[in-house]
C-alpha cells in the first residue's frame, strides 16, 4: 500500500502493523494483526467484513475505545503525524470529537434519554470551546439543519424518545460534526435502520463528506452499503486485511477469493422467480385478518388511540410455494406471523390450515394441531433454551406427539442430518454452536413435526451474509424435498427476491402490493413498493453484476464456528 493515493493527498490517518491482543482463552491470540491502512483527506473508506473479522476492533482502536480486556500489542495509528496509540488520556480527549468523531450503530443507546437534544449537541461544543451561549445555540441549530432535521429550533428542546430511529441517528451525526472533525468514523451506523431510512442516512453521510471535505471511515458488514458509499474498500477476515483497493475494482472485478465469496453470497434479483406450484393443494386460506391493540390509558384522563397492527390481510397458500412478506419495522409482518402461529390472538378474521379451522380451536385442540404450522424465529441466540440439549430441543415436539425415547432419538438424528448437522450435535448445548448452526437446529425443531406450513420470521437477518446464503439454500431445498408451503418474512427485499415465488408488500398493517416476485420487482405498481426498491443499498451495482457469471456459483464454504 502506498502512502499516497491517486489524488496525491497525504493520508490524514494511517495505521501501521496494528495488532490488538485478545485475552487468554479466546479462539485466537489477536483480535486484529498486521493492519495497514491509509485514509486520505477526501475519501470514504469502507471496512467490510463478517462477524469476528475485527472491523469494529480496528475502528475502536483509533479512538482508544477498546474494552479493557483488549490491548494494542504493537503498531501505530498516526493522525496528522501524531501516534494515537501512545497518546495520553488528556491528548486523546482533545482529539476525540474535535478532530476525529465517531457515530455508533445504536443511536438510541448513545443518546441520553433524560436530556434534551440541544443540551446533548451543545455539550460537544462546550467541551472543546468557550463560547457565549447564544453562539452555541446558533451553531447547534445550524448543525441540526445541516443533517436535514425538521424544525431545528423546536427540536433542541425535545427529548430523544420523541424521535424516530433515523432522526436519532441524524442527531448523532450532528454531534459528530459539531467540531468540524477531519475524520468521521461510522461503525455500522445504518444497520439498525429500515431500508428507506438507511438510504437517506447514507445519502446524508455521502453529502456531508463532500461539502465538508472530511475523511470517512465506514465500517459495515453489508456489501450493498459498500457499493452505495465507498471510494475505497478494505476487506477483513479473521482479524486480518485480506483485500484492499478502489471500490470499483473490488466490487466489479474481485480478485481475492474471500472477496469473491462475499460478493457471490449477496442475494440477487434473479433468484427463484419462477412461479411454481400453481395447481397444488391449498394449505392455508383466510378471511380478512385484523389485529388491533386496544387503547390503553396513559394517564388518568388521556387515552391512546388504538393501534391497528393488521388491517385486513387475506392469505392463500399452496403446498410447495414460497410467499415472501416484506415490509419495514412496524408494518405488521411479524404480528401476522404470531397470529398465524396463534401466539397472539386475532382481533377479527379466521383462517384454516387444510380443513382444520386453526384460528378457532380451543387450547387443548390447538396443542394437538400445532404441528401443522411451525416457525423459525429471528434470533437463533434467543430461540433455543440455553439449558437444554439439542436432543431435547428438537425432540420435545415428537415426545409430545407420543413417540418413544428410541424413536425420538432416531428421528432427531435423521432430522439433524437433513439440516446438515452431525448426529453428535444431539448431546450438546446451544452455546457450543455458531449462529448458522443454531438456526439449523431451530429449523430441525420446526420440521421434525412434519408441518404443512413453515413460517420463517426474519430467519436469516441475524446471520452473516455467507451463512445467510447457506441457510437460504437449505430452506429452499427442504421446501422442495418435504413439499412445504413456506412463508418467508423479511425486511430485506433481496432475500425475498431470492427465495419467494410470490411477494406481499406490507405497510402499516395493510398489504399494499401482491404478485409474482418477478413482476413486483420489475414492475412495481404501488408507490411504497417503488420507494422500497429504490432504497436497496447498492442497487445499481447489483443490477450491473447480475449476470450469468455471478448467478449460480455460490461457494460451498463450510459453516465454520464463529
Amino acid at each position, binding site marked *: 500500500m502506498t502512502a499516497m493515493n491517486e489524488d496525491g493527498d497525504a493520508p490524514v490517518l494511517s495505521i501501521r502493523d496494528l495488532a490488538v491482543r485478545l485475552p487468554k482463552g479466546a479462539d485466537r491470540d489477536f483480535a486484529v494483526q498486521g493492519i495497514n491502512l491509509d485514509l486520505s483527506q477526501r475519501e470514504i473508506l469502507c471496512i467490510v467484513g463478517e462477524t469476528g473479522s475485527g472491523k469494529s476492533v480496528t475502528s475502536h482502536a483509533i479512538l482508544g475505545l477498546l474494552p479493557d480486556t483488549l490491548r494494542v500489542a504493537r503498531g501505530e495509528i498516526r493522525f496528522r503525524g501524531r501516534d494515537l496509540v501512545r497518546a495520553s488520556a488528556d491528548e486523546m480527549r482533545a482529539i476525540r470529537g474535535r478532530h476525529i468523531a465517531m457515530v455508533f450503530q445504536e443511536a438510541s443507546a448513545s443518546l441520553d434519554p433524560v436530556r434534551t437534544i440541544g443540551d446533548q449537541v451543545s455539550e460537544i461544543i462546550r467541551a472543546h470551546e468557550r463560547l457565549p451561549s447564544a453562539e452555541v445555540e446558533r451553531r447547534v441549530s445550524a448543525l441540526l439543519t445541516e443533517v436535514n432535521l425538521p424544525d431545528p429550533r423546536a427540536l433542541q428542546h425535545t427529548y430523544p424518545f420523541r424521535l424516530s430511529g433515523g432522526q436519532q441517528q441524524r442527531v448523532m451525526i450532528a454531534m459528530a460534526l459539531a467540531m468540524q472533525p477531519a475524520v468521521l468514523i461510522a461503525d455500522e451506523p445504518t444497520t439498525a435502520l429500515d431500508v428507506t431510512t438507511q438510504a437517506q442516512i447514507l445519502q446524508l453521510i455521502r453529502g456531508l463528506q463532500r461539502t465538508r471535505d472530511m475523511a470517512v471511515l465506514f465500517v459495515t458488514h453489508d456489501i450493498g452499503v459498500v457499493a452505495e458509499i465507498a471510494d475505497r474498500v478494505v476487506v477483513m477476515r479473521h482479524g486480518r486485511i485480506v483485500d484492499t483497493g478502489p471500490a470499483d475494482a473490488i466490487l466489479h472485478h474481485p480478485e481475492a477469493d474471500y472477496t469473491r465469496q462475499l460478493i457471490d453470497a449477496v442475494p440477487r434479483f434473479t433468484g427463484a422467480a419462477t412461479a411454481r406450484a400453481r395447481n397444488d393443494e391449498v394449505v392455508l386460506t383466510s378471511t380478512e385478518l385484523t389485529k388491533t391493540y386496544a387503547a390503553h390509558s396513559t394517564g388518568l384522563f388521556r387515552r391512546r388511540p388504538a393501534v391497528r397492527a393488521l388491517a385486513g390481510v387475506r392469505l392463500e397458500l399452496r403446498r410447495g410455494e414460497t410467499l415472501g412478506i416484506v415490509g419495514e419495522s412496524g408494518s405488521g409482518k411479524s404480528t401476522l406471523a404470531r397470529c398465524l402461529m396463534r401466539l397472539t390472538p386475532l382481533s377479527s378474521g379466521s383462517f384454516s390450515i387444510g380443513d382444520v379451522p386453526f384460528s378457532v380451536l380451543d387450547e387443548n385442540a390447538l396443542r394437538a394441531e400445532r404441528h401443522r404450522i411451525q416457525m423459525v424465529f429471528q434470533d437463533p441466540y434467543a430461540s*433455543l433454551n440455553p439449558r437444554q440439549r439439542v436432543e431435547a430441543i428438537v425432540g420435545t415436539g415428537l415426545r409430545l406427539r407420543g413417540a418413544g425415547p428410541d424413536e425420538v432419538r432416531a428421528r432427531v438424528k435423521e432430522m439433524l442430518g437433513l439440516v446438515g448437522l452431525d448426529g453428535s450435535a444431539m448431546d450438546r448445548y446451544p452455546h457450543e454452536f455458531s449462529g448458522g448452526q443454531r438456526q439449523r437446529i431451530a429449523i430441525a425443531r420446526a420440521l421434525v413435526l412434519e408441518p404443512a406450513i413453515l413460517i420463517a420470521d426474519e430467519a436469516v437477518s441475524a446471520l452473516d451474509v455467507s451463512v445467510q446464503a447457506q441457510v437460504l439454500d437449505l430452506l429452499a431445498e427442504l421446501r422442495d424435498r418435504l413439499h412445504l408451503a413456506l412463508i418467508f418474512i423479511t425486511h430485506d427485499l433481496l432475500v425475498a427476491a431470492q427465495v419467494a415465488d410470490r411477494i406481499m408488500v406490507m405497510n402499516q398493517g395493510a398489504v399494499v402490493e401482491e404478485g409474482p416476485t418477478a413482476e413486483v420487482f420489475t414492475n412495481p405498481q404501488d408507490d411504497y413498493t417503488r420507494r422500497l426498491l429504490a432504497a436497496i443499498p447498492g442497487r445499481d451495482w447489483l443490477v450491473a453484476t447480475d449476470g450469468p457469471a455471478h448467478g449460480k456459483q455460490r461457494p460451498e464454504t463450510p459453516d465454520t464456528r464463529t
Partner: protein
Amino acid sequence: MNKGFLRRLLTHTGGALGLAFLALVVLVAVFYPMVNPRTPWAIVSRPFIPPMTDGFLLGTDMLGRDVFVGLVHGARFSLLIGLLSTLVSLGIGITIGAVAGFFRGWIDEVLMRITEFFQIIPGLVLIMVLVVVMGPSLWSVIVGIGIITWPNVARIMRAEVLSLRTRQFVDAARCIGQPPAEILFTQVLPNALSPVIVVASVMVATAILIESGLSFLGLGDPNVMTWGYMIGAARPYLRDAWTLSAIPGVAIVLTVLSINMIGDSLTTALNPRHARKGERA
C-alpha cells in the same frame, strides 16, 4: 452445577475463604460429637472457668458446662436450622413466585397480595407469635423462619419468570404444543434459578441470625443447644464473664460472614456470561 462452576467459585478469594471456613465448621459440628459423645448440658466442672485453663479450651459457663462442647452442638443446630428453614422458604417462595409470574392474570393478583400481606408484617413479631402458638420446638422455629422469609424469594422468582416467559424459546415451546405446566418446568424454571440460589445462600445466614434472636429471647427449643441460646443464657453475667457471650457471638459473625461471601461469589460464578466463556468447548 459442574466442575467449571466450582472452579469459578473457587477462583474468588472471598468465595474460597468463606467455603473453607464453612467446611471447617461443618466438619467439626459433624465429627466432634462422635469423638466426644458427651451432651453439652452435662456439668463437668466448677462454673466460670476462664478459657484456656484446666484443660478447657473455652472454659465453662455459669453452671459448669463445657463451652466448647456447647459451641460445637450449637453449630450443628444453627446450621441445621439455617439450611432447613431456607429449604422451607424456597419451597413456598419458588412455587408462589413461579406460578404468579408464569400464569399472570387473577392468580398473579391474588398470590402477590398474599405475598405483600406477609411482607408488611414485621418478621420478628410474626415469628414470635408463630413460635408461641405452635410451642417452641426445633420444627416450629424452622417453619416459622421459612414463613417470614419466603416473600423475598417469591418476588425475585416472579420477576425472573416474568422476563423469561416472553423469550423466544418459550414461544417456540408453545409452537410445538408443549402444555403450560411443562413449559414452566422445562423451559422457564431451569433458567430462573440462578438468582434464587444466590439469595438462598444469604438466607441461610439470615436464618441463623433469626434463630439466635429467638433463642436469645428464650423462644428457641429448650432442648436444643444453639448459639443464640448460649448468648441469651450468658447475658446476666456479661460483666463478670463476657467471653461466655462473646464466643458464640463471634461464631455467629464468622459463619454468617462466610456464607455471605459465598453468596457474593455465587453471583459472579452463576453469571451466564462468565459461564459461556469458561465452558466453551
